[in-house]
């Protein structure tokens, strides 16, 4: 998996209530959820995000509620990859299950700044900040999780009999 995009950066403990406020959870429409993504933290997000952009954040990204609407809203808004210092565990598994690419890399999340262009080569575990030229190594996914991602998410894995 390879991505390249412009960085939109946030801080620590970005919770799922600000990613998609509960007042919008009366729908499961992906586009409608995306239209309110990050609203309570950053009212400019939906107007400036472009297809393929990369979100970078600090510790404990996606903490709080288990709402899968949060990774769905991020993915549907056009974000191709989230890089964070660490992820809250339910958000982490939800992202894998729905096929939103996420990478834990404290060094990259610290160094990469808003507006930088980042290239991510997840097969080889390399993140490159093309604006500064710095690159960072990430840990590969465990085989079990790699399998889920390669099969196109958990639902597809079950459909194909890869998880039973």
């Amino acid at each position, binding site marked *: 998996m390879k991505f390249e995009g412009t960085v939109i950066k946030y801080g620590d403990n970005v919770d799922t209530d600000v990613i998609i406020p*509960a007042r919008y959870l009366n729908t499961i429409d992906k586009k409608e959820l995306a239209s309110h993504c990050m609203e*309570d933290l950053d009212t400019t997000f939906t107007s400036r995000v472009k297809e393929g952009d990369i979100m970078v954040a600090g510790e404990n990204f996606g903490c709080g*509620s288990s709402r899968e609407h949060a990774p769905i809203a991020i993915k549907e808004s056009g974000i191709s990859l989230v890089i964070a210092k660490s992820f809250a565990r339910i958000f982490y598994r939800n992202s894998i299950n729905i096929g939103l690419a996420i990478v834990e890399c404290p060094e990259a999340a610290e160094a990469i700044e808003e507006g930088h262009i980042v290239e991510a080569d997840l097969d080889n575990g390399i993140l490159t900040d093309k604006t500064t030229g710095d690159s960072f190594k990430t840990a590969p996914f465990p085989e079990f999780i790699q399998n889920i991602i390669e099969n196109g998410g958990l639902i597809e894995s079950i459909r194909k009999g890869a998880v039973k």
Partner: protein
Amino acid sequence: MGMTMTQKILAAHAGLDKVEAGQLILANLDRVLGNDITSPVAIREFEKLGIDKVYDKDKVTMVMDHFAPNKDIKAATQCKMCRDFCGDKEITHFYDVGQMGIEHALLPEKGLVVSGDVVIGADSHTCTYGALGAFSTGVGSTDMACGMAIGKAWFKVPSAIKFELKGKLNPYVSGKDVILHIIGMIGVDGALYRSMEFTGEGVASLSISDRLTMTNMAIEAGAKNGIFEVDDQTLEYIAQHSDRKPVVYKADEDAVYDETYVIDLSEVKSTVAFPHLPGNTRTIDNVGDVKIDQVVIGSCTNGFYRDIEEAASILKGKKVAKNVRAIIIPATQDIYLKAMENGLLKIFIEAGCIVSTPTCGPCLGGHMGILAAGERAVSTTNRNFVGRMGHPTSEVYLASPAVAAASAITGRITDPKEVM
């Protein structure tokens, strides 16, 4: 190397003699839970699988509690989607308005979780059932869909932090203060990916509702699950509520813990979490003068009978301060009924509170008590993130039922001892 309580339950449900931290396993599920917000996404995913039955119609459980009674047409449509699905799949445990309560108070009360179970729920506070010695954890809707289909879920076996409790709580201090104290100490990601295991001689002095409150908020420290050692009180509670037989797992003597904290319950003070993180705690003697507009007493954290009873004992014969709205939400129909029979509803209404039908409502800014710009609430709920109870500039202060009730009387965050 021995196993923790959590590891033993997971090993047994994966058909393995032994598991260790970091191992990826596929575990059998004793219960798969969803609510009116998360289930519609799960149903959409389930239908992609092209199968017509759930793995066990007695084990899949749906509770309409978040935006129910339906707050608007969209919420009504989501509840209808769940109702139709459960009707079609002949789901035994579908709880709609009239039978429903807040899910994590309802399931223990209905005897649907016993010690030794593995439970997943598409709601982050599913970790509550660890109070009964079960492994239970919050997941997303896709995990719920797959759980409904195959009765299994993948887990990375967690390592654990041990909390050894000793001593007894002081009057007006409860499980909520203990868990806020712990989150304040270790931080909102202090237990990330790990188990929080509560043991020690102090456990016996904690009521089941204190324990449910504590494991409920394990997620606010980032934990995968919280779990209490099973004792006579647990077994008595389960015998009263369930026909199922509990299976008791004790941690091995040589189980390895990442860290151990010893907590003397007699030293825990009333504790309040200031905006906008549950770990941003202060003891009651350090809160200063914080004026409030609203009080909420309820939720999956603190809507249990003992919570409602404690609030009533403080509000009895007193009045809610002018310009404060006090909202009391018993978590289930049974709790509501018991509160009515014991005269607690009368106490609340005479004090100037309202008493609502069970709902998650205001906790997540859904309905039944939304805050305007700049307003402040003291709430017995579990999260105080930006915009959680309404406008993004409103503020939520998390506290115990005793502190919330005392604050309703004075109109500022107040130590219960001051009004008693």
